[in-house]
């Protein structure tokens, strides 16, 4: 329980936030709004899962937003211009993304370079490549696309559980199992906890690092597919800045940026909190552009501050402080 405290705190904060929204805007309480929250943040939720792995392993991946952008452009081009069947295109792009991530991971590992910068270069590269492919936005009209985009579990009240939302939920569950239930997951934690020790404990640090960045890029690719479903198009400027949202989601969800500690479910709630803040602001609708930004910042602060206070109280309540943990 003690270890889950940040996730519980985050979840409590989210639920309270939702309650406040519901009290402010009666329309908010609908199932539709709840499902929209899932659909609209599906692509963010998927990359954030990958980001959680990377951050826990002590790294960071700034390239994911650009990889999403690249994916959408690539898909639009090969499906619309080259006539590739969408499913084949999905497989191709996932392979490309995985290779891209593996490349970044290898550079980080074998040249001993900081992930922040390597993935920043990756961010430039992926975005640059998508500009080269096309600077125009390209609609995707393939049959499967409109089918997938339309397909949804219809719930009462006009609410729909869409394909993107389902993919995100599956990713979150899969990610949680992978991180918290497998050897690979334990290695990820070990790498973030003590990189030097991990090698001495016999973990293949190189292979794990490459795999982690591969996973992150792969999920960014999946997120790109979801994004292209969501918008039925490919556009080189899509998903700019998503990496920061994903990092924020992970950190709000209790993941330590210094590595070694975190939860996939926490990240999921972090994504929902960010979505909630945005929905609140657009429901309000009276805020000018700048007040909206200020409000976003303040709400972010309120959530983090509240979470910090909750954790602090939880820590107070604990009797014996464990010796040797960071003070």
């Amino acid at each position, binding site marked *: 329980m003690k270890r889950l405290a940040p996730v519980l705190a985050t979840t409590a904060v989210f639920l309270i936030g939702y309650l406040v929204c519901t009290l402010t805007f009666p329309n908010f309480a609908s199932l539709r709004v709840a499902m929209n929250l899932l659909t609209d943040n599906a692509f963010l939720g998927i990359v954030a899962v990958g980001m959680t792995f990377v951050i826990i392993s002590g790294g960071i991946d700034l390239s994911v937003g650009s990889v999403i952008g690249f994916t959408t452009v690539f898909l639009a081009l090969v499906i619309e211009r080259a006539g590739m069947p969408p499913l084949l295109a999905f497989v191709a792009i996932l392979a490309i993304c995985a290779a891209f991530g593996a490349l970044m991971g290898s550079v980080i590992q074998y040249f001993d370079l900081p992930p922040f910068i390597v993935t920043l270069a990756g961010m430039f590269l992926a975005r640059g490549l998508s500009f080269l492919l096309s600077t125009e936005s390209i609609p995707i009209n393939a049959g499967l696309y409109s089918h997938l985009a339309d397909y949804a579990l219809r719930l009462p009240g006009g609410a729909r559980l869409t394909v993107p939302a389902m993919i995100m939920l599956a990713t979150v569950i899969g990610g949680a199992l992978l991180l918290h239930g497998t050897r690979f997951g334990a290695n990820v934690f070990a790498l973030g906890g003590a990189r030097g020790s991990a090698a001495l404990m016999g973990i293949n640090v190189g292979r794990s690092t490459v795999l982690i960045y591969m996973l992150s890029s792969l999920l960014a690719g999946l997120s790109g597919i979801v994004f292209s479903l969501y918008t039925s198009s490919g*556009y080189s400027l899509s998903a700019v800045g998503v990496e920061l949202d994903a990092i924020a989601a992970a950190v709000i969800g209790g993941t330590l940026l210094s590595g070694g500690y975190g939860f996939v479910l926490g990240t999921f709630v972090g994504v929902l909190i960010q979505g909630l803040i945005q929905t609140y602001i657009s*429901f309000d609708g009276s805020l000018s*552009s700048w007040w909206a930004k200020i409000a976003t910042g303040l709400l972010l602060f309120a959530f983090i501050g509240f979470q910090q206070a909750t954790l602090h109280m939880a820590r107070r309540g604990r009797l014996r402080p464990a010796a040797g943990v960071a003070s």
Partner: protein
Amino acid sequence: QDLTVGFSQIGSESGWRAAETTVSKSEAAKRKINLKIADAQQKQENQIKAIRSFVAQNVDAIFLAPVVSTGWEAVLKEAKEAKIPVVLLDRDIDPSGKDLYLTAVTSDSVHEGKVAGEWLVKTVGTKPCNVVELQGTVGASVATNRKKGFEAGIAGAPNVKIVRSQTGDFTRAKGKEVMESFIKAEGGGASICAVYAHNDDMMVGAIQAMKEAGLKPGKDILTASIDAVPDIFKAMAAGEANATVELTPNMAGPAFDAIIAYKTKGTVPPKWIQTESKLYTAADNPQAVYDSKKGLGY
């Protein structure tokens, strides 16, 4: 009547955009319309979220200033299912979505570029003219279109050609920086005959760069840009700028009228309400235009 309109605005990336928001608000107030503005900070996903939440709030109409032309089908379909009319402002979307909105109040950005290009061709006559171009943000549809339009405008004049083209990200600072290096790369600016900028802000920066390099903008080097923001008229009045093509910030006014007519009388508006792309030059009393525009929130 008490109409509520949700407006998914792109963001506040430029002075022109801020003016559009201000004008929309005052136009709404004039008509006693309750306007909800959601700022998307240049992101399509935020615009989609905003539209979804407008649908969830069951507004009477949705205005959309689309950041990009594609990718609106799904969400506009949702609006259609909820029987909420959608009006596009400022920019159009991909033709495949034609039946998903009521009408589009837009200018034609290809046309804008073309007007600027034709003006330049007319002004230089048969003299050879090397043009440097300050592009908007790479990938932005307005930038692509204004480039296309300008190229079409100068297509008939082989003496006019673009020698350098870089992005200035629609900002003054980048416009100035890029112009500085253009001047250096083109022998101190001696071989540049004209600058074409995809918006006025970049041109204002470029004018400063030219002045700092000891050149006389408007005389040594001609300028043509688009938007018609107040500051370019100030430069024009000082003889430092030559031409700008107006993009009116009042897109919402006609849109409100169309919606009111549609809601009260059932009048279906035309599919495209095009705004004027008026060319302003030094002959148009720039000082007066400046005075009339500076209160508009640019």
